[in-house]
């Protein structure tokens, strides 16, 4: 297993490098002088020239890339124009929110999406299946921000059960109970994704139920629910697990909208604000972090795949 992991890591590196090149080029693709962009609108021509020389913007592009890469590997992602702090710490302060939000959302997706998907598949052809399938598709068609706005209207404004914006850190007073700030946002984010999982679980289970080994399982006189879970679902899990990984990765970017609606101090909102503020170092830094995260998740999905399906060769 370890060898397999290392092998996969190795194949990851070229892709990471290629992606890093794209991210690096990002600043240079923006029309205008990179140094001027980095310093923002308020810089004087002298400051621009000085930074240009310091940063080596007059050197060939590929040399600049290597210097940049070197910095990145040492943890230096540049300095935010707006915050005048290292990009990494700016990102770090938003990380807690985003990670907690993503985790809570995944929890909802699993506890809502899986059972409904399984139910839908086992009751295939009945009205239960029709309702859950169509319902899931409907839920997947709702724009997250619209859902978020209405959840705020109902639960925060009208009923006053949950707060509608902000998120104090877990290390502030309130501790774990501060998670209630993330309840509505995570539900908002979970809804369309849970719907997709419902549909995927349903489709996978229906496909598997047509396979021969399910017939064998039934021929053993097993109870239908045992057949459904231990045989059908267990096999469907192989494709579903992959989807979970990608869903988690997709959550990272979809959280952008939710964080904006609920004014959460997360990385998503940071990206949007940085775009509006033209804080390019931060944008670049966030993209890099997210891309790396995405790839790590892909790797984990591969490993899970190997664990779930004995046919996958660990060579």
């Amino acid at each position, binding site marked *: 297993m370890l060898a397999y992991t290392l092998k996969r890591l190795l194949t990851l590196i070229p892709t990471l490098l290629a992606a890093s090149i794209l991210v690096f080029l990002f600043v240079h693709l923006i029309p205008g002088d990179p140094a001027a962009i980095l310093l923002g609108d308020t810089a004087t021509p002298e400051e621009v020239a000085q930074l240009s020389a310091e940063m080596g913007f007059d050197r060939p592009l590929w040399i600049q890339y290597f210097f940049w890469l070197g910095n990145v590997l040492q943890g230096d992602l540049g300095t935010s124009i707006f915050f005048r702090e290292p990009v990494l710490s700016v990102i770090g302060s938003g990380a807690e929110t985003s990670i907690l939000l993503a985790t809570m959302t995944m929890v909802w997706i699993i506890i809502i999406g899986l059972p409904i998907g399984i139910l839908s598949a086992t009751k295939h*052809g009945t009205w239960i299946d029709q309702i859950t399938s169509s319902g899931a598709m409907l839920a997947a068609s709702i724009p997250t921000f619209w859902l978020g706005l209405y959840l705020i209207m109902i639960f925060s404004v009208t009923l006053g059960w949950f707060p509608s914006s902000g998120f104090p850190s877990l290390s502030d007073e309130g501790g774990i109970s501060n998670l209630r700030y993330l309840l509505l946002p995570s539900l908002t984010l979970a809804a369309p994704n849970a719907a997709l999982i419902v549909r995927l679980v349903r489709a996978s289970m229906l496909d598997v139920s047509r*396979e*021969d*080994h399910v*017939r*064998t*399982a*039934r*021929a*053993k*006189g*097993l*109870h239908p629910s045992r057949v459904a879970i231990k*045989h059908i679902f*267990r*096999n469907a899990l*192989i494709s579903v697990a992959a989807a979970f990984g990608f869903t988690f990765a997709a959550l990272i970017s979809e959280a952008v909208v939710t964080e904006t609606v609920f004014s959460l101090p997360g990385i998503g909102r940071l990206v949007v604000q940085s775009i509006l503020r033209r804080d390019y170092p931060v944008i670049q830094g966030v993209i890099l972090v997210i891309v790396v995260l995405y790839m790590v998740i892909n790797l984990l999905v591969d490993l899970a795949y190997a664990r*779930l*399906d*004995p*046919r996958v060769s660990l060579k």
Partner: protein
Amino acid sequence: MTASTRGSKTTLRGSDHMALLEVENLEIAVSARGKLLPVVQGISFSVDDNETLGIVGESGCGKSLTSLAIMGLLGGTTVRITGGSIRFDGMDLLTLPEKDRRAIMGNRMAMIFQEPMTSLNPVYRIGDQIIENLRQHQSISNSAARDRVVELLTLVRIPSPSERIDSFPHQMSGGQRQRVMIAMALSCDPKLLIADEPTTALDVTVQKEVLDLMADLQKRMGTAIVLISHDLGVIAETCDKVAVMYRGRMAEAASTADLFAELAHPYTRGLLNSIPVVDRDVEWLEAIPGRVPTLEENLTGCAFHPRCALATELCASNVPATTEFKPGHSVQCHFAGKVAS
């Protein structure tokens, strides 16, 4: 192609005692595009302990559906039993509550299928899959079950059974997987084993091994076997009695010896003639002219008449009744016995 000692064991129908399995006038229909199309139209046969019944016919004649119907695996909205009865060990299977039906499946009646490559669950070890069957029907501890599985694997001639018990299906060959299926089917010592084309997907040499194994196990355990095949040669070698199906009906049924001694139905004659024989030089391979009509083509009269050399107007308009051509040898043909031997 001799079946010398086999044929004399039992007659096909109606001894005084109740046979282990009695199928009477079974009718199965498929619903397609809002219509109900009959697939099996009134077939009857029986099997006794220690007997092997072979059901032979071309693809689409309904033999597989019949076996699934007996086993109770016709679950679903598209295929349904629409008439007739199935009695097993004195019980009326069609009126049995679901729970009791499942108590029989894998326990007193078991089935093995055509595709060993896909009939086992790929994510569980083969030992665990057999244990699952054991623990479903018997109160037996896990370790006792494991021992029993090793016994079974030895019985079906899987080498190194105590190691192979932890193999995954994809680590075994097709022939080995079919043996595992047999072991699983026989794990609770069933009275009836239904084998739906068990050797069709295997190499010829492996075929013989598996069939020999089944015959051997029958001798040991006294299991009744229903063997389904499209290969008349296989049937001839292994079965005590034969039922020939064509398009949902029983064209001919007799003990193997009687059947091969004197064929009564033109279709059976056609099947026999189309088997190439190794030790003779033949210029043409004889085939039955025409093709099996599709489900939706509605035919009047005898189902076989469009392809039959002896067909007359009578055949085109009247469905032949089942007649007793000889004692224990039934046929559905207006001209039974008039085929040139």
